[in-house]
């Protein structure tokens, strides 16, 4: 039961990431691309957590946490760049 759910979830998250990547590649607007990249980061978290359950190890937890942090910082920084140009002022 669990393995079926995991496999299904891998497929679903994989498709979600593919869709996100498509949006990054085609845009059309810059905001779209940033949004899609942010989504990709969050999808990666889901993927990593699923992978942890699949392997039965919590070894990958920090990576997920780190992606959450850097995804946020990247998005904020790019948004600031688009708004103000200068990200540290």
């Amino acid at each position, binding site marked *: 039961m669990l393995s079926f759910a995991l496999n299904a979830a891998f497929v679903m998250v994989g498709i979600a*990431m593919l869709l996100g990547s498509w949006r990054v590649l085609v845009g059309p607007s810059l905001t779209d691309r940033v949004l899609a990249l*942010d989504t990709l980061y969050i999808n990666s978290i*889901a993927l990593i957590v699923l992978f942890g359950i699949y392997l039965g190890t919590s070894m990958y937890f920090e990576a997920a946490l780190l992606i*959450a942090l850097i995804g946020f910082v990247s998005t904020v920084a790019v948004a600031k760049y*688009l708004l103000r140009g200068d990200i540290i002022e």
Partner: protein
Amino acid sequence: MSVWVEGLVAALILIGAGFTLVGSIGLVRLQDVYTRLHGPTKATTLGVGGIILASLVFFTAQTGVLSVHEVLITLFLFITAPVSAHLLAKTAMHRQEKKVQSTRGEPWQQ
């Protein structure tokens, strides 16, 4: 691990993954950047929350000790996702990205 717990984990995983997928579908299918913001920031965040909840239940059941550190990710995401969305919306408005017909009204100007 009992069947119930396994079932619970499986259900949470499927729900989470489903929401994640829905969020991304929204990202692709919706018409302009303002509506597209909804998909990932709401559905995907919730979806990841579901998967993390599954992880929490799974590892608690596996080790017998309450596994709380997953909560940290959820907490973090739930705090930051609205800020990201807010900033992106600000950016889109600043850059005057194209709007579709159905994205109407500028309530802050009223």
